[in-house]
C-alpha cells in the first residue's frame, strides 16, 4: 500500500534542517503564500461535498439501496440517472448510500493514526535523545512493510473496519510521529518556545499552547495524508470482499460487482469509481495545498 508522504526519503537525509516552524515565518517570505489559494477553496469545498454525500447521502437516496427496481444492467433512464447494477438495483441510490461506512472507517482510522502520531511525535521531539532515535528507527522498519499485507493478515482475526484502522495506525502513525517529532525538536530551539519556557511555563503547557498550534497546518496536512491512506486500504479490503457484507452498498465493493458489466451499464462502475476518486483525490489535493501554502514540502 502506498503512503503518500515524502518523509521516508527526505527526512533520512536532512530532517532537522528546517528549524523554523511553519507558521512563525515564511520560508520564501512571500505573503501571497499565506493567502487561501483558490485551489484550496476548490478542494476544500470538494472534500466537504463528498464527505457530506458520503455521510448523509442515504437520507436523500429516496429508497432502499438494496431494492430491485429495474432489469439487471438497465441503462440510464428517467428515474434511474445512473441505471441499474447486476441485480437491477438503483446505482444512484447505492452510490448515495455506499460511502458512509467506508468514509467513517477511514475517518476513524485517520484520526486514530494521526492522534497517536501527534502525541508520540510531540513527546519524542521534545525529549529527543536516544529514545527519539530508537523510535525513529522502529518506525523506519514499519514503513518498509507493505501495508495491504498487514491489513490482510489483520482481517483474518478482525472485522474489516478494525483491520483498516489497524493497518492505518501501523503504517501511518510512524510517519506522523516522525514529521511531528522533527518539527517539535526544531521548535524547541525557537525563540517563542524559549520565551514561554523562561516565563516559567511547563513543558506540557508549552507543547499544547505554543508548539501544537504553531504546527496546526502541518498536522492537518498530515491528517489528510492518513485519510488518503485509510481510504486506499478500506477500498482495497472492500474490493477483495472483506468489507460490509452484501447487499449493503459500498463504493469499492460496487467496483468489483459491476466491473465485468462495464459494457452493459458503464455508469454502474464509473459512478462509484468517481465517488472514490473524488474522496481520495480532494483530500489529497487539500493536504497538498496546505503543505504548499505553509511551505512544508
Amino acid at each position, binding site marked *: 500500500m502506498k503512503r503518500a508522504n515524502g518523509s521516508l526519503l527526505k527526512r533520512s537525509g536532512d530532517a532537522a534542517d528546517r528549524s523554523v516552524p511553519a507558521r512563525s515565518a515564511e520560508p520564501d517570505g512571500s505573503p501571497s503564500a499565506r493567502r487561501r489559494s483558490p485551489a484550496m477553496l476548490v478542494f476544500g469545498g470538494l472534500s466537504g461535498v463528498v464527505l457530506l454525500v458520503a455521510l448523509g447521502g442515504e437520507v436523500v437516496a429516496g429508497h432502499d439501496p438494496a431494492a430491485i427496481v429495474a432489469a439487471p444492467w438497465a441503462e440510464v433512464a428517467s428515474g434511474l440517472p445512473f441505471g441499474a447494477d*447486476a441485480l437491477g438495483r438503483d446505482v444512484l441510490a447505492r452510490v448515495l448510500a455506499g460511502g458512509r461506512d467506508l468514509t467513517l472507517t477511514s475517518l476513524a482510522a485517520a484520526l486514530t493514526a494521526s492522534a497517536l502520531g501527534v502525541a508520540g511525535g510531540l513527546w519524542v521531539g521534545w525529549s529527543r535523545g536516544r529514545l527519539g532515535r530508537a523510535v525513529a528507527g522502529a518506525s523506519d522498519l514499519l514503513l518498509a512493510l507493505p501495508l495491504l499485507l498487514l491489513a490482510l493478515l489483520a*482481517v483474518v482475526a478482525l472485522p474489516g473496519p478494525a483491520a483498516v484502522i489497524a493497518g492505518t495506525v501501523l503504517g501511518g502513525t510512524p510517519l506522523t510521529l516522525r514529521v511531528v517529532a522533527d518539527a517539535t525538536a526544531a521548535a524547541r530551539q525557537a525563540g517563542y518556545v524559549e520565551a514561554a519556557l523562561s516565563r516559567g511555563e511547563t513543558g506540557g503547557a508549552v507543547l499544547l499552547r505554543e508548539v501544537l498550534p504553531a504546527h496546526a497546518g502541518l498536522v492537518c496536512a498530515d491528517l489528510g495524508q492518513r485519510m488518503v491512506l485509510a481510504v486506499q486500504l478500506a477500498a482495497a479490503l472492500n474490493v477483495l470482499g472483506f468489507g460490509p457484507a452484501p447487499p449493503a452498498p459500498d463504493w469499492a465493493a460496487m467496483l468489483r460487482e459491476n466491473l465485468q458489466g462495464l459494457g452493459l451499464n458503464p455508469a454502474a462502475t464509473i459512478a462509484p469509481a468517481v465517488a472514490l476518486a473524488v474522496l481520495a483525490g480532494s483530500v489529497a489535493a487539500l493536504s497538498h495545498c496546505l503543505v504548499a501554502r505553509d511551505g512544508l514540502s
Partner: protein
Amino acid sequence: MHSQLRRRSAAVVTAVALLAGCSGTAPGTAPASTAAQPTGTGSGMGTVRYAAPGSPSNAVTDPHGLLPGESDVVRMALTYDVLTLPGADGSTQPRLATAWRPDATLTKWRVTIRGDATFSDGRQVKAADALFSLRRMGKKAAENFGRMAMFDLDASEVIDDTTFELVTRKPYAEVGKALEGATFVVPEGSDDFGKPVPGSGPFRPTNKGGAQAVVYERNDDWWGPKPPARTIEVRAVPDPQARAQALLSGQVDLAGGVPATLAKQQEDNSAVRLLRRPGATLYPLVMRMDTKPFDDLRVREAVRLALDRQQLLDTAFLGYGEIGNDLITPKDPTSPANLAQTTRDLARAKKLMADAGLADGVELTLHTTTAYPGMDSAATLISQQLAEIGMRVKVAVEPADTYFSAVYARKPFYLSYLGGIPFLDVVRVALTPDSPTNETAWQDRTWSADLDKALAEPDDAKRRGLLGELQARLRDQGGYAIWALSDRLDLAKAGLSGVPEGIGFASAFIDQVSSDG
C-alpha cells in the same frame, strides 16, 4: 462482518451448493454426448477449454470430502470413474458398476464392477478398491452430507475381484441411485491426496496447466467410448460475469453458469451458442410448519394460491425456465406428472386466510439473499403478491456469507435453494424428522413410515408410484411453495458439441465434449 461468521457460512454455502449440484436427473432428451462428433483429426482443435464455477485457490484434491465448487466435481469426474451415473431420463445408468442386485430382503446388494478398467498406474480396478472408496466416503460423512448414510459399510464385504456386497441399514430399493455421481473410485489404501492418486477415468490430469487451469489428457486406455477431445482444460472462475467475458473474448470454449441478462444479450450472436438445461435450479419458498402462522395448513395453502408463478418466472429468471407446481423435485423420474397445476386464486386464498382467523392480515419477514441470481428480486415480488391476501411481508436481504448459517433451516420464512437434486437426496437432507436441516419442520411420522415402505418395495413401477404419492402428499401438506424452476445457462463457442444436457451431477461429466462439431 466478523470473519468467523463469514468463514463458517462460506463453507456451508459451498457445501449446500455442492449438495445441490450433486446427483440429479436429466430432462427427457437424449444427452448431446450420444450425438457427439467423431474425433476431429483434421481440424487440429483437439482441446476444449472450460470455465467452470469455482475458486482456483480452493481446488480440492480429495474426491470424497467437500467438493466446494462445480469445477471440483468436473475435475473429479474426468479423473476417476464413478459406480453409476444419472441417465438422460433420470434413470440410473451403469458406469464402473455394471449390475447391482438385491437379495429378497433388499438389505444385501451384490454390486458387480467391470473387469476391464485400469488405474493410470496399470493396476486393475477391483471390487476392493470400490468398497474402500465407499468406506472412505462414509468416514467423511461430515464433509459430504452423509452421502453413504443408508449403508452399513462395516458389514459390507468384498466377494471377489469384481463383486462386492453392500449392506443397507434398512430395506433400500434405490441402491443404484445412491451410488450415482459422487462415488469416485480410488485405489485401495489411498489417503494422501496431496500427491496425485491414480484414477481410472476418461482423462488424466497433467501438471501442464500450472495454477491457471488443470490440463487433462485423454486416457486412451479408458474402457468407455473414446472421448473426441484430446485435451480438456478445466478452469475455476468464481465470477459468472467473468466466465461469460472469458468466452466472449475467446479465452475459453465453454462458460458454465452465466447470468440470464448476458445470455439474453447473446441470443443473436452467431459466434456463441446458448445451452439451456431445463429445471436445474429452484428457489423453494420455505414456510416452517412449527411456527405461526404457518402451523396452519390453510395459511400455507393460501400462500401457494396467492403466487403469480409466471410473473415470478419472468422477473427472477427472465423467463429462462418453467413455472413450478409445488413439487420439490419436479425433474425426478418418480415425481408425479398428472397433478393439476396450481394457479393463482386470490378469492380462495383470501377465504383460507379468513378461515384461519387472519382476515386482518399478518406481519411477516421474508428472508432472501443476493448469493443466487434472481433470488432477491423474487422475494420482492413475492412480498408484493402476498400483499394482495393481506400478508404484510417485509423483505430482509441477507448477506450471501451468512445466509446458510443464519437463515437456512433457522428462519421460518425464506427462499431456499435446490439444484437438480433427486427426491431421495432431499429426503436425506431436509425431510427426515431428526435432520438438522429439516427446514420446513416436516415431522409427519406416517409419511416417514410410508417412505420406508416404499423403499422396501422391490417392484420398480409400484415403488415409483409410492414415491410419487409421497411427493404429492408433501406438495399438499408440506411447507414448501415451489413457484418456478430456472434453466442452467451455459455459453459455448459455436461448434462445440457433446456438453451433457442433464442437470445436477450429470452435468459434471463432460468427457464427450468436442470443439469440432
